[in-house]
């Protein structure tokens, strides 16, 4: 194992995005059902298309630093998703990637800070605030949790997503529904929680399987 304890390299971030792609694949129907209730029923399919493109891009042109992984992924999402989640998730990852710069290894705390910058950029792009029943309601708590631990990030993001159920949407297509948007989990918050769940799972696998990396982390 070549990684310094407590830091994460390029391979870790590639594995994380692969885990997200798998989670999106697995949960696509649920995301689309949530979106059918208050949106236009394309969230699962859109994200599946986006993260499939992310996987392909990372395989074809493997980036050489964690920041570059996130920037490349963000770019793919903006280009391929076709719905609002493309520019929003794309901006999240791209801004976080830029914040990490060229560093070959980053700590969890550093990544949490970079992701926090991404969340702020998402908030500016969409003009949404916490409590508007959007992805921010999972991303914000997720980043706060990530400052403590990967599993806290997963838990807080999941709680944040579940917490959108009673809220009334104030942004996006769901906001046209007014009161009728209450009683449904926001699909963007649900997919945001998947990002943090995949991150915790990737970190757990890394910790449990530390001897397996065979120098993969050397990049």
């Amino acid at each position: 194992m070549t990684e310094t304890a407590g830091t994460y390299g390029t391979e870790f971030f590639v594995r994380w995005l692969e885990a997200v792609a798998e989670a999106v694949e697995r949960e696509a129907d649920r995301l689309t059902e949530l979106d059918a209730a208050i949106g236009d029923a394309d969230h699962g399919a859109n994200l599946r298309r986006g993260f499939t493109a992310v996987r392909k891009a990372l395989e074809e042109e493997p980036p050489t630093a964690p920041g570059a992984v996130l920037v490349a992924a963000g770019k793919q999402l903006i280009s391929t998703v076709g719905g609002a989640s493309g520019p929003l998730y794309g901006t999240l990852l791209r801004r976080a990637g830029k914040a990490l710069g060229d560093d070959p290894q980053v700590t969890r705390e550093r990544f949490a800070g970079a992701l926090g910058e991404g969340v702020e950029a998402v908030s500016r792009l969409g003009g949404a605030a916490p409590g508007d029943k959007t992805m921010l309601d999972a991303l914000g708590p997720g980043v706060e949790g990530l400052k403590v631990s990967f599993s806290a990030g997963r838990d807080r993001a999941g709680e944040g997503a579940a917490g959108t159920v009673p809220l009334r949407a104030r942004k996006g297509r769901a906001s046209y529904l007014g009161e009728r948007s209450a009683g449904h989990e926001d699909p963007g918050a649900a997919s945001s929680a998947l990002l943090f769940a995949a991150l915790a799972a990737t970190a757990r696998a890394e910790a449990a399987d530390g001897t397996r990396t065979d120098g993969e982390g050397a990049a």
Partner: protein
Amino acid sequence: MSAGRDDDGRGGGGMSAGRVGIVLVSHSAGVAAAVAELARGLAGGGDTAPVRPAGGTPGGGLGTSAELIAEAARAVDGGAGVALLVDLGSAVLTVKALLAEGGELPEGARLVDAPFVEGAVAAVVTASAGAGLDEVAAAASEAYTYRKE
């Protein structure tokens, strides 16, 4: 990416050289194309400023395509700037995200805050008359102030 296009626009001596280009971004290919046709028609037809629709997804579905937007913006870029008008949701966010990135849209590309149909007509009329990007953007935005009752 835009440098070659600038040269093409300036050196080509075509009818649209030096005029502001207009890109109309809608969730629907049909809406974008029809609004482009309407705006050209109301601008007098013939020698109008370059206008390109960027509607729907490459597969023909409803949605927004960064690729179609970038392609349309390059096609209308004659070096005098490109005004992008958008309908809603992901059309707005995609153009904003592309502009924030830099390098994906031509130099001088700008998101114009305007109603889609009325703004498109105002933009094409003013751009065809030779107005600069600021003037085109202002005319399109001003379309918000026209009340219908």
